[in-house]
Structure formats: C-alpha cells, structure tokens
C-alpha cells in the first residue's frame, strides 16, 4: 500500500471502530483511535502475515499488551480477512468471541491479553524462540504509556536487552492520557525514552499518528544489531475525531448518534480528500 492508501485505510478503520463501538454501546474509543495508525502500518505494510494461515510458523507476531484498545485491532483483522466483517456487529455482545480484549479464539490473535504489563514478557519469549529456531519472525508488542507503571514491563525490558533480541520491537502508544488523567500527573514517566535507552534498547521517537514515520521506524528495526528497538509513538488520544482529541473522558466514551455522524463526516472528508487528489483509486 502507498502512503496515501495507508492514510485512507486508517480513516476507514476509525470509521469502522466508531460504528462498532456505537452499535455495541461500549468500548475504549480514545486509545483505539490513537493506536489506529500504528496498527494500520503494521497490518497493511510491515508484518509478514497470511490471513489464510493464521498459525503459519514463519509469520511475524503482534501482541497487544494494551489489550483494552482492541477495537481497532478487531476492525483491522476483519478487514484483512481473518474473520467475516459481519461479526464486528457482535462486538461485546453476550457470548461473542469479539470481547473487549484480545481473545485467541479469534484467528489472528496470538495470546489473550488485557491485564497490563504482560505483553512484553510474552513477546520476549516469542522472540527468543524465533532466535533459537533461526526463524526470521519479528515480534511487535504494543504497550500503553500508562502501562509503563507496571513493574513487569521493566522485568521484560531487562530480559529483551539481556538476550539481545533485535527481532523484538516494543511500541509505546504515548498519548499521555490514562483513565484518571495525564500520565505525568497519575505517575510520572518522564524521561521515558532515557529509561528505555538505559535498559539497553535502541529508542526511536516519532509522531505515532504519522504513517510514513511509523513505516520508516518499523522498517529500520533493528537499526542496531543485538538490540531490541523501542518505538516511542507520540500519539493523540482520540486522534482523527476533532472533538475527541486529547479529551480524557473519551477513554471509554461511547459516541452519541450525533457525535457518530459528525465523526464519520470528518473521517469521510479525509478519505475523499485523498480520493479527489487522485491518489487513491
């Protein structure tokens, strides 16, 4: 996919997840909007995956350690053909597979996550296994910034560097908001990049809502042999919906009918601007 196609795809995924959350009347809206560009870059450009063979051993792995913003992931997995798109209508409904956190009963989901601070250790194990089996698989682990307060993140960070796992890419969705407010007010994280560097990771800091920057950062990893890469993706919570951006209560606010219509119109305008430019056919 070209850069504009990826941007257009990200807008479409945002529309899908907003419709899905609106229909289900529940969901983590803000964090899913902030990580949509990261997931779009991974699933449409970067990762080696085959929706027809979700367990293919040579695939790259993605672990959503910040499992609560699974909505963008459900929409992307459906769009990539891991399961029928109609199933998105069952999101969070009684007995569904598409629950509010990653669920490995669904093709394309590697591990069940949801409890914060688990994903990176799992990813270390996967990256270690790939090294031992001399597979080219890479492991991408998306963490939240609020999640950085979990001590287990740093246990895994230590191990990733100790075992020189340059096939491991940690990503932090640095949107600076958690459920109770600003990350720096709740539990100060800064200087976060220096902390990861001090733990032996190669740190890249980018605009995490810029698809080109994301693609470039992921393609470059590992920039340094023998070091895991940490992509500090500086994002905006609620990204793509003007009135949701940087507003804490959109963490799990469900859009009203009016808000949904307005948000869809904004995103539709983004998509049509690319189309009108003739960049997307």
């Amino acid at each position, binding site marked *: 996919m070209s850069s504009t196609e990826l941007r257009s795809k990200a807008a479409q995924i945002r529309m899908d997840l907003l419709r899905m959350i609106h229909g289900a009347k529940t969901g983590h809206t803000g964090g899913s909007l902030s990580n949509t560009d990261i997931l779009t870059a991974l699933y449409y450009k970067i990762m080696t995956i085959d929706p027809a063979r979700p367990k293919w*051993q040579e695939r790259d792995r993605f672990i959503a350690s910040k499992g609560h913003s699974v909505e963008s992931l459900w929409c992307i997995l459906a769009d990539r053909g891991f399961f029928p798109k109609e199933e998105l209508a069952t999101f969070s409904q009684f007995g569904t597979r598409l629950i509010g956190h990653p669920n*490995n009963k669904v093709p394309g989901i*590697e*591990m*069940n*996550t*949801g*409890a914060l*601070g*688990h994903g*990176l*250790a*799992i*990813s*270390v*194990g*996967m*990256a*270690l*296994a*790939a090294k*031992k*089996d001399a597979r080219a698989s890479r492991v991408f682990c998306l963490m939240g910034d609020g999640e950085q307060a979990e*001590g*287990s993140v740093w*246990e*895994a960070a*230590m*191990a990733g560097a*100790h075992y020189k796992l340059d096939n491991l890419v940690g990503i932090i969705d640095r949107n600076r908001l958690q459920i109770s407010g600003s990350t720096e007010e709740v539990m100060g994280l800064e200087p976060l990049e220096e902390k990861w560097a001090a733990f032996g990771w190669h740190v890249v800091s980018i605009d995490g809502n810029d698809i080109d920057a994301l693609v470039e950062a992921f393609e470059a990893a590992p920039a340094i042999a023998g070091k895991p890469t940490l992509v500090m993706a500086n994002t905006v919570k609620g990204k793509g919906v003007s009135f949701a951006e940087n507003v804490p209560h959109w963490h799990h606010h469900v859009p009203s009918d009016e808000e949904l219509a307005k948000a869809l119109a904004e995103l539709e305008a983004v998509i049509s601007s690319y189309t009108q430019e003739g960049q997307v056919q």
Partner: protein
Amino acid sequence: MANKIPNRQVICETLVTLAQEDKDIMVLASDSRGSAAMAPFANAYPEQFVEVGIAEQNIVGISAGLAHSGKKPFVTSPACFLSMRSIEQIKVDVAYSGTNVKLVGISGGVSYGALGMSHHSVQDIAVARAIPGLAIILPADRHETKRMTEALVQHEGGVYVRIGRNPVEDSYESDDYEFVIGKAVTMREGTDITIIATGETVRIALDAQAELAEAGVSARVLNMHTIKPLDEEAIVCAAQETGGIITVEEHSIHGGLGAAVAEVVVQQHPVPMRILGIPDEPAIAGKTSEVFEHYGISSSNIKAIALGMLGK
C-alpha cells in the same frame, strides 16, 4: 532415611535424559538453577536453558511466549513466589491463553523451614485450584517424580507441580507402575476407612495404614497425586466402600486437597471426613518433620483420628 535423592534432582535427571531426543524441552530458572537442582541441565543443554533472574512474573510470561512458539518450557522457581507473585501471568498467559507451560514449584510446603511465612508455600494449591484449565500435581516420591516428569513432557497444557526441597522416603518400591495425570493410585486396599494423601504426605499415610493394621483396622490409602483434575470416581468409591475419609496434606486446611475432596464427598456421597493440614495461621518455623509433628501431620495422629472416627 534410606533415600537421599530429592525430587528436584529427579526432575532434572529425567529432563536431561528426555532432552536428548526432544530439543523443544526448555528449562527456565529465576536465579534458581542451584536451588532447583537444574545446573546439570543448564550445563548439558545451554541452548535449552534460559536464566530470567529474580523475576517470577517475567519467567511465566517468557515461558508462555516460548510455549506459543512450540517450545515445552519447564519453569523451575520457588513455589512460594512462582505460585503467588506471578499468579496473574499463570491465569492469563498460561491458563486463559492455553499455553503449554509446566510450572514446577520447588521447595514447596514448609520445606524452607526456618525461613518463615514469606518462604513457606501452603496456599499454592488453593490459589492454583481456582484457575480453570490448570492441572495441579504433587508427586509422592522420587519414583513418582520420574514418571510424572515423563508424563508432563507428553502432556499438552498448563500444569502446576509442587515438590519439596529435601529427599523423602519412598512410597513406591520402584517406578514400574502406571502414572496417569488425573488418576489416583490406590496404594493400599482397605475397607474400614480411607486416607487420602498427596505429595510427600503419602509416606505418612502409608505408615498410618500399617499402624492401623496392627490395631485391626483396614485402611485404604489413596495417593491423590493430581489435585486437578480430581479423580472424583476414586473419592466417591472410597466414601461408598469405606464410609469415612481422612485427608492429609502439607498445605493450609483452606482450599487444598481436603477442601477439594470435601466438595466431592458432600455433593456426591456424604460421609464423615477429617481434614489434616496446616491450620489458618502462619506456619510455625522449623524443620519439616518438626512442623509436621507440631500440627499432628503424623502417622500416630492419623491413626488416632481414624480410631476416633470408627468409635474405637
């Protein structure tokens, strides 16, 4: 004591043998290769050994990642920390995610003796029992530990194993018997009462059976090596055929073997029952034998309880 070989050494030796053929077997340690007696494995197969450092949450998460990629990880870490410090990883990364991780809690029960409640592990069975999909096994002696380890390599799924630190007297004459996960072993047939024991207390139950025999009481002894999935059939059968049950365990009386057996008995065939274990208090410090004696986890006390239940 005749036997000088601790169960942790048996696990290591068995895995060293099996790993010659099976390159997917991996052993992980949390600065515990010495205490888990896993140094011979680490030396023999450095590529199949992973040191994680003192980080019990991490060791379980990494093992889940390895298992997800087809490895057969054996986590060896002190039972007290492995079962409680990392219980959320066990719940989510192992049980809920369905990964093939074997969690081997070493120095379980009160085998860390004088180190106190922080190092005693007498709540681990209760905690592990509440997690769906997690099997729980306590081998009785070195022979059973060997057969169990072989079975674990073949078994797909999450298992919590608890062993003690020190050598235990043999309960079996050899390892020439069938070990099936989830199937209790009738160590002695009996008709008057049943003693159900697990792990290293099986030897005590066997001694009690011999003492009861001298007193003219025919006691059945069941080795409930697997606490989950529990052999309900053997329990109901014992209740029906012997009319009374005593359970024995190196664990809190809350939530362990006794509680598991009682749940079956009370719902399927109520008979008088006694639960022998560590009472609801921080266990007294001391050698395992001293702690057992203090709490009446002894053959003579089991005999006294049995005679009392039988009105003799």
